[in-house]
């Protein structure tokens, strides 16, 4: 038994989720007017940025793997 997702599967999932969250966080931002969506928008933005950073980290790991001679 092993976890069926590879590192790159998780990276892809992170990218997609971060994208969805970033766009959502921007669209419901109070700077565009008070939206009726009753959620903690600041927290949503934090999560979106965290996921985005995690995805970028996976990209950095990939780059590191490419440039490091085996």
């Amino acid at each position, binding site marked *: 038994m092993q976890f069926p997702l590879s590192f790159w599967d998780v990276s892809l999932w992170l990218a997609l989720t971060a994208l969805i969250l970033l766009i959502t966080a921007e669209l419901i931002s109070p700077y565009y007017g008070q939206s009726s969506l009753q959620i903690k928008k600041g927290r*949503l933005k934090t999560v979106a940025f965290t996921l985005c950073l995690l995805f970028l980290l996976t990209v950095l790991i990939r780059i590191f793997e490419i440039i490091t001679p085996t």
Partner: protein
Amino acid sequence: MKIRILFRSEVILVLLLAVIMINALSAFFFTFLDHVVHGDLYRYGLQFNYEWAGQYWAYSSLMISFLAIAMLVTGISMAFILIYTRTRGTGSRFVSCLLLIMGIVMSGISAFFFNRLDYIVNNDLYKYGLQFSYEWAVQYWAYAKLMLGLLGFATAITVISLVLILASKPPYEIVVGKSRHEIQLFPRTRAIFKIGSTKLICSVLFSAGVIVLGFSIYCTSSILAFIGLSFTFWGALLFYITPSKQVPLELLNATATSNLTNMEKILMGCNLNGKCIYLPPKYLRDFESSLMFISSKAEQALPKFGEVEEEKFYSTNPDGIFLTPPGLALSKLFEKELGTSFTKTDLNYLQEKLPKLFIEDMEIVESMNVETENNIVTMEITNHIFKDVCEETRKHSKLHESIGCSLCSALACALAKATGKPIMIEREEQSRDGKTTKIQYNILEE
């Protein structure tokens, strides 16, 4: 006397829980069947080949995946039934029915894939050297029949639950003679599950995600892993971003009105002609508190440092009264949100941080602008949520002139703390369309 009891939530919940357990049992028996194919059959001449194995694995993983989805949607449907028990909303009833239908379809697809798999075992495997024997066949048929039987049983129970939900016609009622009385037949169920629907959905999503993730590891299915990961993540995220409690704005306005009237009465009763001055912390014993002084005469000096006592109402030297500002609690809330006390900040800090706090963090205004010129601080606020309270304050002329509305008062408290100087609300104007409020504060020199 006629009693209509058509929607028995407990019965339906128990039935659906049984459906999930039966489906899980069905998946469990499939693993035994799989052991027969991948273990026993090799002893009866079966030769391994990727041609049949690839197809077999694909069908088995698809079957298990659909079975897992069927269990998942049944679980989610249970959550919606709980919401329905609490809210009586037709939407949740409709969604729960839809999910149950989806569960039946998923079970059907799962059975279809099992039939395809059975065809491989009973036809294709003979081409790869398998010899028929009752020894393995009896075992195989027993597991297959158990599996399909349980799947059918689970589907039947789901259909019964669906019929029970569709046949329900709440609210429950007792008709005694000509009078009708609505009753709560299951107050305990309603009380137990009287948690927020959002929290319920979050918990269901999260736990379903964890279960599916576990299944994905067990079945080595990446599709299930993606589904499980997403469910777990979204469940946790929804829980994290859901606000603690929402109160309608009308409620806030209603609670404020009486206090405003009382304050106006105090101002009128004490015959005060001076303007209200928000005292800086150095005048007070408690630096984190705020106090305002209203003098009896129009032009009068401020009280001296030692003569200010928070508990006192009347002041004799000079004549006037001490009052707790109506915006004190609000200003403390601003401090809490900013994570600092205004006493530790300055005017530049307020100018920089207040717009972000009001617009982005607390969402109480649509836009805000803070300008400082000499001793005058001008704040321009557009579309703030205290509009109605401020409107109410304007009806009380004395209160409006000297103290201002809750928001103006809260900002004055913040300014007094940040600048360390007495603050007076110079002017408060509203634009013609009523959207923008302009407040001018005067920083007084002692």
